[in-house]
C-alpha cells in the first residue's frame, strides 16, 4: 500500500525549531522533499519509470528522461524557483537545495536541464528586475515554462566583461540584439532568456546590461537556435546556442538600469554559487550508496570488501566529505538570508570547494568499485554516469578559477579588518531546520570586508573542550586550523597589488584555496556546536564526525595531524551502514529516502 510504504521522518519539525520567518517552514520543507521523492519513486526498482536503469538509457540516447520531466511538471517544480513574495514556493535557499537533491541523486541532467537553469536565470530578475518583469517571470515558471540564462560566449569564458553580444539602444527606446550566445542550456525550448549584453562600446564594467527577453513576439526571421553541443556528461541536456541579427526587443526587457549588468550578475551569482554545488551532494549520496551496496555484497580474500581497511576508510572518508560539503553549503545558503553583506566571499568559496570535494570523493569511491566503475549498465551503472555528470557543476556558470578570482581581491581586506577581530557568525547560520527571514535580494553586495564564519573557527579554540578523546582531537585540530588562518592572514596582507587582480599569480590562487578549506572547517564546527546545544540530531552532536572532517581538511591543507582515536572511524563507519540499511540520506538531514 502506498501509505504504508511512505518513509517516516525521524526528525519531525517542532515549533521550537522555527526561529525567524513564517511559522511552519521546516514542516513545509520536509513535506516538499518527501513529496518530490515519492513522486519520482524508488530509483533502485528496475520496474519504475525513473529507475537508474531508465535514466542511464535516456542518457545513452542523449535525451532527458521524458517520465522525469513529466513528473517534475506534475510536481510544479518551477514554482520552487519563484520567491513566495512572487507567488512561488521559494522560501529558503537551503530548502531548495534539499528539494533539488532529490532530483540530483537520480540524474544531474534532469536537475540542470529541467530546473536549475531556470533558477539561475531567475535570480537575475529577482535581484534587479522591476515588478512587471518579476511577475512575467513568475508566470512562466509557475506555469511550467523554462527560462535560459545566456551569459556565455565561448571566446571569453568567465571573462564576461569582454563579451561582445550586443543590445544596441534603438531610437524607440528598445534594443536591437546582435550576436551569438553559446552552450546555453534549454536555449531551444525556453519561453524566455536572460541575456547578458553589451549596451555600450566603452571598455570597463559599466558597458553591459541584463535583458529579460521573451520568445513570444520576436521577429522569427531575425533569430535562430544554433546546433546542439554533444557533451561528455549531462548528455540529456539541451545545450545549444542563440544567434540574433538586428532583432528588436522592447525597452521593458532591460533588467535594472542600463550598464548595471556586471553588478546584477555578481549579486545574482552569490545566490546560485551558494545553492547549486550542494545540490550535487545528492549525486554523491547515490555514488556512496552504490559503493556501500557493492562492498557489502562482494567477497574478496575470503572477506567482504567492507572488511578491507582501505575500502572501509574510503567509505567513511566519502561520507565525512559529504557532511563537510553540506555544512559549508548550509552556512552559505543561510548566509544569503542572515548575512547577505558577507555572502560574496562565502558563496564563491562554496562554489569553488564543494564541487572539488565531491569530485575527489567520487574518484576515491571509484577505486573501491574497481572494474565495476567502468561498466555502463547494471546494478552499479549509475556510478559512471554520476561521475561523468558531476564535473559540469564546476564548469557551468562560474568556473573554479572565476570563484577564486572573486575571493582574491577581498583577501587583503579581510586579513586587515576581519580575521581574528570579527564577531562569530550567529548560531542560526548552522541550524539546518531553523526558520529564516525572506531572501533579501537587495542587500547582496559585491564585497564587505567582513567574515563571521572564520570567527566561529577562532572562537572554537577559546572554548574549553570536553574530556573525551574525540573532543580533545577536535580541539587540537581546530588549533592547527586557526594557526593556518594566521598564516593565510599574513600571506594575504603581503599580497602585491598585481596579485589582487584576475591575473594574480598561482600563490594568490593557493591562498584562496586554503581560505575556502578553512571556511568549510568553520562551518562544520558551527554545525556540530549547534547540534550539541539544541539537543537535536545525536549523530551531528557527536564530536566523532567533526574530528574526522577536520582531520581530512587539515590533511588537505598539507598538515600531518596526529592519528585520530579509533573510536572516530568506528562511529562514522557505523553511521554509514546504519543510513544504508535505514535508507536515509548521507547529508546533514538524515532524510528518509524511497530507495
Amino acid at each position, binding site marked *: 500500500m502506498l501509505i504504508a510504504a511512505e518513509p517516516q521522518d525521524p526528525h519531525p519539525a517542532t515549533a521550537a525549531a522555527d526561529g525567524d520567518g513564517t511559522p511552519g517552514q521546516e514542516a513545509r520543507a520536509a513535506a516538499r522533499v518527501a513529496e518530490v521523492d515519492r513522486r519520482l519513486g524508488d530509483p533502485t526498482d528496475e520496474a519504475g519509470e525513473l529507475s537508474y536503469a531508465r535514466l542511464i538509457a535516456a542518457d545513452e540516447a542523449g535525451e532527458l528522461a521524458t517520465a522525469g520531466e513529466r513528473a517534475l511538471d506534475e510536481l510544479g517544480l518551477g514554482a520552487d524557483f519563484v520567491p513566495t513574495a512572487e507567488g512561488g514556493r521559494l522560501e529558503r535557499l537551503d530548502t531548495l537545495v534539499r528539494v533539488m537533491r532529490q532530483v540530483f541523486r537520480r540524474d544531474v541532467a534532469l536537475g540542470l536541464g529541467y530546473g536549475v537553469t531556470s533558477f539561475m536565470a531567475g535570480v537575475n530578475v529577482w535581484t534587479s528586475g522591476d515588478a512587471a518583469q518579476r511577475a512575467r517571470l513568475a508566470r512562466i515558471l509557475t506555469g511550467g515554462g523554462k527560462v535560459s540564462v545566456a551569459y556565455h560566449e565561448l571566446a571569453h569564458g568567465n*571573462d564576461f*566583461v569582454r563579451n561582445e553580444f550586443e543590445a544596441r539602444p534603438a531610437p524607440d527606446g528598445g534594443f536591437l540584439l546582435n550576436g551569438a550566445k553559446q552552450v546555453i542550456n534549454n536555449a531551444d525550448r525556453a519561453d524566455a532568456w536572460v541575456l547578458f549584453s553589451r549596451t555600450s562600446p*566603452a*571598455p*570597463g*564594467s*559599466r558597458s553591459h546590461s541584463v535583458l529579460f527577453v521573451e520568445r513570444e513576439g520576436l521577429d522569427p526571421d531575425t533569430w535562430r537556435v544554433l546546433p546542439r553541443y554533444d557533451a561528455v556528461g549531462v548528455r540529456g541536456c539541451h545545450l545549444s546556442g542563440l544567434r540574433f541579427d538586428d532583432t528588436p526587443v522592447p525597452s521593458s526587457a532591460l533588467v535594472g538600469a542600463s550598464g548595471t549588468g*556586471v*553588478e546584477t550578475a555578481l549579486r545574482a551569482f552569490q545566490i546560485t554559487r551558494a545553492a547549486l554545488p550542494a545540490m550535487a551532494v545528492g549525486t554523491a549520496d547515490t555514488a556512496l550508496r552504490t559503493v556501500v551496496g557493492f562492498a557489502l555484497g562482494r567477497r574478496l580474500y575470503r572477506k567482504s570488501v567492507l572488511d578491507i581497511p582501505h575500502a572501509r576508510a574510503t567509505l567513511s572518508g566519502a561520507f565525512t566529505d559529504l557532511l563537510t560539503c553540506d555544512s559549508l553549503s548550509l552556512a552559505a545558503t543561510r548566509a544569503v538570508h542572515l548575512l547577505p553583506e558577507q555572502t560574496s566571499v562565502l558563496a564563491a568559496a562554496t562554489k569553488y570547494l564543494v564541487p572539488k570535494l565531491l569530485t575527489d570523493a567520487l574518484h576515491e569511491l571509484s577505486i573501491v568499485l574497481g572494474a565495476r566503475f567502468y561498466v555502463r549498465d547494471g546494478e552499479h551503472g549509475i556510478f559512471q554516469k554520476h561521475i561523468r555528470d558531476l564535473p559540469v557543476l564546476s564548469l557551468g556558470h562560474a568556473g573554479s578559477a572565476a570563484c577564486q*578570482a*572573486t575571493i*582574491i*581581491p*577581498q583577501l*587583503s*581586506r579581510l586579513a*586587515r*579588518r576581519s580575521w581574528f577581530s570579527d564577531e562569530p557568525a550567529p548560531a542560526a547560520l548552522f541550524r539546518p531546520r531553523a526558520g529564516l527571514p525572506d531572501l533579501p535580494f537587495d542587500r547582496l*553586495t*559585491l*564585497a564587505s*570586508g567582513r567574515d563571521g564564519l572564520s570567527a566561529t573557527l577562532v572562537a572554537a579554540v577559546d572554548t574549553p573542550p570536553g574530556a573525551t578523546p574525540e573532543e580533545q582531537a577536535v580541539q587540537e585540530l581546530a588549533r592547527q586550523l586557526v594557526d593556518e588562518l594566521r598564516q593565510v592572514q599574513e600571506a594575504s596582507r603581503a599580497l*602585491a*597589488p*598585481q596579485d*589582487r*587582480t*584576475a*591575473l594574480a599569480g598561482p600563490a594568490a590562487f593557493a591562498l584562496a584555496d586554503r581560505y575556502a578549506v578553512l571556511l568549510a572547517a568553520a562551518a562544520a564546527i558551527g554545525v556540530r556546536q549547534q547540534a550539541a546545544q539544541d539537543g537535536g540530531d545525536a549523530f551531528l552532536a557527536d564530536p566523532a564526525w567533526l574530528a574526522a572532517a577536520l582531520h581530512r581538511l587539515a590533511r588537505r591543507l598539507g598538515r600531518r595531524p596526529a592519528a585520530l582515536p579509533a573510536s572516530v572511524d568506528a562511529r562514522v563507519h557505523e553511521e554509514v551502514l546504519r543510513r544504508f540499511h535505514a535508507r536515509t540520506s548521507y547529508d546533514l538531514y538524515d532524510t528518509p529516502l524511497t530507495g
Partner: protein
Amino acid sequence: MPVPTTGHTTESLTTWLAERIALYLKRQPADIDPDVPLAEYGLDSVAALSLCGDIEDDFDVVMEPTVAWDYPTVHALAGHLLAELAADTAQGGGA
C-alpha cells in the same frame, strides 16, 4: 571648495591613485594619463574591486565596491574621493 582638514588635495590624491594603479598594471605612474579610462590600460573588474579596498584601508573611508567602475579615470576617482573625504570630515569623521 573647502579644503578638508585631513589635508588631501586633488593633486595628492591623483598622485596616490596613479602610484597605486601603476602597481596593479606593472607600469610607471607617469605612463598613466589621468583622463584615460583605466579599463583601457587593462585594469580588470577584479583589480577595480581590490583598488576600492586599498582606498578604504589607506584613507579610512567606506566606498561602494563599484567606485572604480563609476569613476573610471584617475581624475574622476580623485575628485570623487576628495568629495567623500570632505563629507566624512563634515560629519565628524575627521575629529
